[in-house]
């Protein structure tokens, strides 16, 4: 999430992150753009961070703050797993993230999502917005690009989707956000987490589908319809 359109000195993951629960787990996704003011300092960043094999953190907000929260929670998660001799539950790690956000409310700017799979409750998505609220949801989105997605996800999400449908939903949502948000873009990263573990997928920047008034990459499908050029 970006404070505004004006330049900031610190790197911000002006970003789009989306997480969706489906029948057997969760599909999570993010764009790959990191910006310092207007400059794209990293066009291929990885905003999906594993907290454990089955629980993932989606990061938006201050790049430094979210990296640090992820590092702390991953450290606690490893120790917790050793003590329990089992995988940590999604809810536990989500609550840890929320507690760090809440305890340092004044200093951290992290709009986070924790999503994953565990044996107790299956696929789960938890929103952990700035301030440290914890709320379980069927799907959620955050980051500057999320403003362009509420309507789309409100109307397109279905209970009990298949894995393919959920991946399609997340990829399309990210592409729509990147199409309108200057702070989002680049390539799309998706991870599907289910009982079998986590599987990564990458959609390169020139294979992100174009939408209204955009041109596909050269050599690909025929042009999509758009508006006439605006002259004087």
């Amino acid at each position: 999430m970006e404070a505004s359109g004006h330049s900031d000195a610190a790197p911000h993951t002006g970003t789009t992150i989306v997480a969706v629960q489906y029948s057997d787990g969760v599909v999570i996704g993010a764009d790959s753009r990191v910006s310092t003011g207007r400059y794209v300092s990293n066009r291929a960043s990885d905003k999906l961070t594993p907290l454990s094999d089955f629980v993932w953190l989606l990061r938006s907000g201050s790049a430094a703050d979210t990296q640090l929260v992820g590092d702390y929670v991953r450290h606690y998660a490893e120790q917790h797993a050793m003590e329990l001799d089992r995988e940590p539950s999604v809810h536990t790690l989500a609550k840890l993230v929320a507690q760090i956000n809440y305890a340092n409310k004044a200093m951290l700017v992290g709009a986070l999502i924790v999503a994953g799979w565990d044996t107790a409750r299956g696929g789960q998505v938890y929103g952990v917005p700035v301030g440290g609220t914890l709320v379980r949801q069927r799907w959620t989105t955050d980051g500057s690009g999320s403003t362009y997605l509420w309507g789309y996800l409100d109307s397109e999400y279905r209970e009990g989707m298949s894995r393919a449908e959920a991946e399609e939903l997340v990829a399309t949502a990210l592409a729509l956000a990147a199409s309108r948000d200057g702070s989002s873009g680049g390539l799309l990263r998706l991870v599907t987490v289910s009982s079998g573990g986590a599987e990564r997928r990458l959609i390169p920047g020139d294979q992100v589908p174009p939408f209204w008034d955009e041109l596909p990459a050269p050599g690909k499908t025929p042009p999509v319809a758009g508006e006439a050029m605006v002259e004087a």
Partner: protein
Amino acid sequence: MLPVPTSHSPALGPGCAGPSLAYASASTRSDIAPPSAQQPCCGSEPFMVDPSAAAGLGLRRHTDTPYVTGTSVLGITYKDGVMLAADTLGSYGSTKRYKSFERLAKVNDATVLGAGGELSDFQYIQTLLDELATEDYCADDGMQLTPREVYAYLSRVLYNRRNKFDPLWNSLVVGGLEGGVPFLGTVGMIGVHYTDKHIATGFGQMLARPLFRERHRPDMSEEEATELLHDALRVCYYRDKQTTNKFQIAKVTAEGVSVSEAFALETQWGYQAFVNPAANALGTW
């Protein structure tokens, strides 16, 4: 015979004397506006020393902060003339709002104008240049404004507006053929202006100019020039947030001015380093 307007153009904003062509004023109409406070009888526009005295007259300041903006404009000279390039995006803050906005405009058969910054001010500038071109047309002597004249005019307009703290919030690039010789100049919102063999505005200054310095030659062929512009546009697309993969190139040669159809560029995403960059350091990018 109606008087021909000669003195300060309304391009210079409120507070300048002289009638305007953009709208009918008293001196170009047969009836004359009634005199009132601050309104001279002769029909010329009010000349204000103190703009606050004009509060009741509806004079408006214009751009305090830009709303709909365009980003970089690139320009290079080559063997046959000049080429300008820009994307077709009108941004609204960080929203990519208008994706088919033409930021390169033909001024006349030898001149093309590109603009970044506030796009409503660019549309206003196009209106001013249209007025000048109409004057030329009515004079019917076969003369039209040369690129250098357009550049000089725009530099005066922008500088004078800056002096009134009411700038036209643009970075302009003027390109054309001046007596058969390629001409390229730029004018900024505070009136800074210069000419060069290659020009870049906005982020292009940081991203494209190094490429131009390394690869530009005034005797480049059209293919080399096009490839250089494509590479510069591609870098601007990768590294400037407010761009879209949809570009136009405007070309001025002895044959005239042409502004291309919008096109997209190929982009590279296949680097191995992009696949799993955090593999050895979880939580980094």
